[in-house]
């Protein structure tokens, strides 16, 4: 794992800086990304809630919706930043873990690659 050490450190630094991605839009009063508005926002923009959208918008209850625990989406700024930071590390472990297991499972079976290092 030694050759990956620098890369892991870089990921850690990125995670520590992640709250910038939460605070900068707040400071500059930027809203949601285009096409990622909540149902209330759509209602305000076009004057009605599209019927199909209303039915499926909440099809899935994500456990950490908007990168915060349930009910904490509108917590105060410092708390929100902390949740965002935790989400960054949670994301590293979840994405890294799943991708690692999948890559191990895929490469660990069948014929070894022809150009495998000796």
């Amino acid at each position, binding site marked *: 794992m030694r050759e990956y050490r620098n890369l892991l450190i870089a990921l850690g630094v990125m995670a520590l800086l992640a709250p910038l*991605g939460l605070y900068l839009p707040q400071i500059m009063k930027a809203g949601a990304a285009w096409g990622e508005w909540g149902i209330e926002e759509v209602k305000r923009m076009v004057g009605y809630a599209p019927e199909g*959208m209303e039915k499926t*918008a909440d099809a899935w*209850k*994500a456990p950490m919706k908007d990168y915060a625990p349930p009910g904490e989406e509108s917590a105060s700024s410092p708390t929100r930043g902390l949740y965002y930071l935790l989400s960054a590390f949670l994301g590293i472990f979840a994405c890294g873990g799943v991708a690692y297991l999948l890559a191990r499972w895929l490469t660990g079976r069948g014929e070894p690659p022809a150009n495998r290092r000796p």
Partner: protein
Amino acid sequence: MHIPDGYLGPPTYLAAYAACVPLWGIASRKVRERLDTRRAPLLAISAAFTFLVMLFNVPLPGGSTGHAVGGVLIAIAVGPWGAMLSISIALVIQALLFGDGGVTAIGANCLNIAFVMPFAGYSAYRFLSRAAASEKGRAVAAAIGGWIGINAAAFTTAVMFGIQPLLHTAADGRALYSPYPLTVAVHAMMLQHTIVFGMVEALVTGLVVYSLRQSRSAWILDSTGDGSVR
């Protein structure tokens, strides 16, 4: 660029899932054939990296936000099929765990962000880097690839949004899903991505590829450009 639940009608999101299944199959086979087991951590690093990049929301003051993806960078590092798998994993986790992007739209988002982006950008990079005489030239090729990749993905995303009113409009003229017509969706998405988010993507891609190659990072598998695993 993450399409939420409720914006796409079932025909669109089911078609996108159907298109993704064989692509995920090919990606899995390519990774199995090409990647050394000891290089498995590189896909993990790629998935974690794109997840983190997407947390850095870039504001358009008073307007909307967007972010880079790092999709072309990952394609340059581990190949476009490796990029497809690792970015798909990040998108699935964003949807399931964080509600970023819809669960019904996972196929659509993977098609745009994990397939169109790395392949469009990587093709451009391969084409341009042939003409690049130096490492700086390669970095510029990577940057242009990044810009092209994210804009290609923004375009296909905008088309998915934009065809919804054509497919699903009630008798009273109200949209059932995403309400904005094709011209509005394409215009809005492309304006933001060509000028702002594409530039951020280009900068990240060029600089990171340059420094990875300078430091002979283990992340860059394909240093010779011949597709072999070092």
